[in-house]
């Protein structure tokens, strides 16, 4: 360890040493400071991830012979997943869920609220923001309970409001139910992000557009969106990933009826923990991780293109 003395060697280019060792600790001591955090990351993040990859290659079960003595089966689990109708069904449902509730629902609703509230101050704005935020910060189990009460077939609030007695929303429209539920629950984040982004749009730019005679749509197209494109992409990335991995709908529908709301996290839970097929479940988890990575890469690429274009 030639850098561990904590002082640049005579003759070493000073600028370079200063940059890589700003605190003057030396590599050894610096590593010592980082080590505890690294250990925790390895123990709770890296090891389970690698363990999942390993499990995905075995026929590990929760109970029975395979639990005591798992065998490596290679890519058999992946083969099985990719040819399984239930897997493809789950993938389609997940995409519907992400597109419907995150990309279209939360982002559009969040932006709409932020846009409508942009010039308002005082009680109205505070009330709207408080209500939207409340939906976001309440524990999932609590709001799920509220929604079960809302959508209940016999004494449900929604049926009373719409005067549609006896409609079992969670059975008749299960996918729509969880999509609307997730929009309602998650719009707050987009609203806050877009409210902050809109604060970055100079009022004079909007006013220039207004003076030219631009309507709302033209103002959004010509002034607002070019300005907040980066915020939009970041927002879509985050809410897509969160929604993709969201397990809360399970509390509402448990994946049913007839697997019609069996989105990916629910599917994995049912395979691995209800059916006890840990190996198969781990393999699907790895596939899900890959899909997450693809989503993230696409957004990152768009973001980078935008940065290149603006310089």
């Amino acid at each position, binding site marked *: 360890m030639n850098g561990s003395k904590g002082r640049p060697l005579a003759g070493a280019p000073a600028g370079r040493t200063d940059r890589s060792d700003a605190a003057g600790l030396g590599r050894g001591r610096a590593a010592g400071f980082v080590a505890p955090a690294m250990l925790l990351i390895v123990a709770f993040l890296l090891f389970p991830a690698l363990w999942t990859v390993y499990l995905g290659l075995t026929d590990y079960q929760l109970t029975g012979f395979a639990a005591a003595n798992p065998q490596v089966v290679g890519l058999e689990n992946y083969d099985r997943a990719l040819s399984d109708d239930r897997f493809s069904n789950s993938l389609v449902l997940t995409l519907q869920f992400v597109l419907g509730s995150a990309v279209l629902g939360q982002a559009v609703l969040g932006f709409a609220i932020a846009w409508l509230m942009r010039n308002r101050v005082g009680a109205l704005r505070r009330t709207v923001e408080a209500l939207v935020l409340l939906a976001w910060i309440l524990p999932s189990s609590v709001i799920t309970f509220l929604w079960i009460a809302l959508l209940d077939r016999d004494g449900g609030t929604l049926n009373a409001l719409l005067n549609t007695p006896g409609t079992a929303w969670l059975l008749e429209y299960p996918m729509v139910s969880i999509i609307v539920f997730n929009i309602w629950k998650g719009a707050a984040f987009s609203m806050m992000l877009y409210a902050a982004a809109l604060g970055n749009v100079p009022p004079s730019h909007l*006013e220039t*557009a*207004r*003076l030219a*005679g*631009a309507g709302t749509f033209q103002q959004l197209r010509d002034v607002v969106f*070019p300005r907040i494109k980066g915020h939009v992409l970041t927002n879509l990335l985050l809410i897509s990933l969160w929604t993709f991995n969201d397990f809360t709908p399970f509390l509402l529908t448990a994946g049913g009826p007839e697997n019609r709301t069996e989105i990916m996290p629910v599917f994995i839970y049912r395979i691995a923990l209800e059916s006890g097929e840990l190996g198969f479940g781990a393999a699907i988890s790895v596939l899900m991780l890959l899909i997450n990575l693809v989503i993230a890469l696409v957004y990152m690429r768009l973001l980078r293109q935008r940065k290149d274009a603006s310089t």
Partner: protein
Amino acid sequence: MAAITTDRLTKVYPGGVRALDEIDLTVEDGEFFALLGPSGCGKTTLLRTVAGLEESSGGSLHIGDVDVTRTPPGSRDVAMVFQDYALFPHMTVAENVAYPLRIKKVARAKRTEKAAATAGELGLSDYLERRPGQLSGGQQQRVALARAMACHPSVFLFDEPLSNLDARMRLEARTFLKRLQRELGVTTVFVTHDQAEALALADRIAVMESGRIRQLGTPSEVFRRPANTFVASFIGSTPMNLLDGVVRPRGIEVAGELLPTPPEPAGRLVDGEKVVYGIRPEYLVHSPTAVPGSLAGEVRVVENLGHAQLVTLEGPAGFVQLVVDEDTPVALGDRGFAVPRQDRALVYRDGELVTSGDPTGLAAAGASGTA
């Protein structure tokens, strides 16, 4: 091309702030008109109300013969150049200039041609494909001007047009703006807090304070005969000396010294009444020796103005500032005497200028009411 007329135009913000208090104002067709005043005087609110970006709470506003009090900004046929120029960073210069035409659904070929022609008039032909971020401050301002000109509005509105430029560019841009306005002949209203800018550019100036117009007149009227002590202390690169005095039979007594009464208010003053004697630093002549009818004091500060020096005397009358030419040596601690030019001195009673009753140039000041 159109005149702008306001009739008791009032703007009250939620919370009760009266930003505009029954403004009556006519900006003539083709005039270059300045709204001048300190921060918060309502000048920007007036400009934005003319633009339609603020809705008035009372009174009416006409552009030409059309009542536009309730017309949305896009239909008023006005163009505004903002302090920060408000150029769209993602559009090229050509696209920025053509933007109002695009909103008005002018065909692409025609608007490109029009934008190029307008940009060319302002010397921007070489920059059409650049983005605003690649231009200097002065160029950005010209792009903003070109965008305002592109659709031939009947009124231009400029918000602090020169304040984002550095000192050198500012002078250049000032001359450029004045020439451009002359050539285009479009009614132009601009807002500034810089009295020198207003004096240099405008055909007429409205000096505002707390939502009211305190004086309306040509630059020389406003500079030479400020209608009240507020305008007197606001206009001029060095503020006017305003000294408390008492009227005597032979002159005006300021701190024990009898100064000759200026000719204009001479017949209108009453013996023994308290007045304010106003004299600009430029109109005080320095004398190293005692002269009757002068203000005495010790030199406290000497500020070099390049072509002259601004000297602050401290004496019985308090601080008195005068401009001394560059060749006269003035040293700190010297005794100095300031002799007022009698024909340039002004007398204020209760904050308002005492005049001979000749309404020349002061009618507007009377109409705007007293504070």
